[in-house]
């Protein structure tokens, strides 16, 4: 079984500042890793994912995450945030077989202040 821990429930930052949202996971088997974003009153959208290959993955809107197998982490970073990045962010893992059910972390609410 897998588990995911998002270490911060809320992260307030100023606009144009850098941000890191932390995610650690636990699993006895290899996993896929995901970050989803939920804007207010919307469903979840895939932000980025790690399946294999390069451990650094990037999204189209400037976020990136690095898979660190030794530290079982998949932290999300952005060098300069915008007001529109205000949302809740969920880290998730799945195993590689079957229906590939997702196990989610508790979520991190990112608030960008002007």
């Amino acid at each position: 079984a897998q588990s995911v821990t998002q270490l911060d429930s809320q992260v307030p930052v100023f606009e144009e500042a850098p941000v890191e949202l932390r995610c650690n996971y636990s699993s006895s088997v290899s996993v896929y890793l995901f970050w989803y974003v939920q804007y207010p009153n919307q469903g979840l959208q895939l932000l980025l994912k790690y399946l294999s290959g390069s451990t650094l993955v990037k999204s189209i809107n400037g976020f990136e995450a690095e898979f660190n197998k030794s530290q079982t982490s998949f932290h999300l970073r952005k060098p300069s945030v915008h007001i529109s990045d205000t949302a809740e962010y969920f880290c998730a893992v799945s195993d590689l077989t079957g229906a590939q059910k997702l196990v989610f972390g508790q979520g991190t609410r990112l608030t960008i202040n002007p």
Partner: protein
Amino acid sequence: DVKVTQSSRYLVKRTGEKVFLECVQDMDHENMFWYRQDPGLGLRLIYFSYDVKMKEKGDIPEGYSVSREKKERFSLILESASTNQTSMYLCASSPGDTQYFGPGTRLTVL
């Protein structure tokens, strides 16, 4: 683009009512999922289906059932709604490694 639709954005029901939440996907995905989302708990898997008429329990199936008669449609059923089932319900579909989510149904049970 993948499109996952849910029948209602907001729903208010009374304790003891039978409640149906419908989810439809238009991408011929094999796998479909129902989650509930509660503050501080993230998303928890209720049931999933990997084929028509096939279903498996997730982490919190108690009080829920599901139906998948057609590949594109996956229904979540609350046989007798209770106040502790007040929550946001999210449906997702997947062809394999990535899940695509609908907009969610916010259910309030009074």
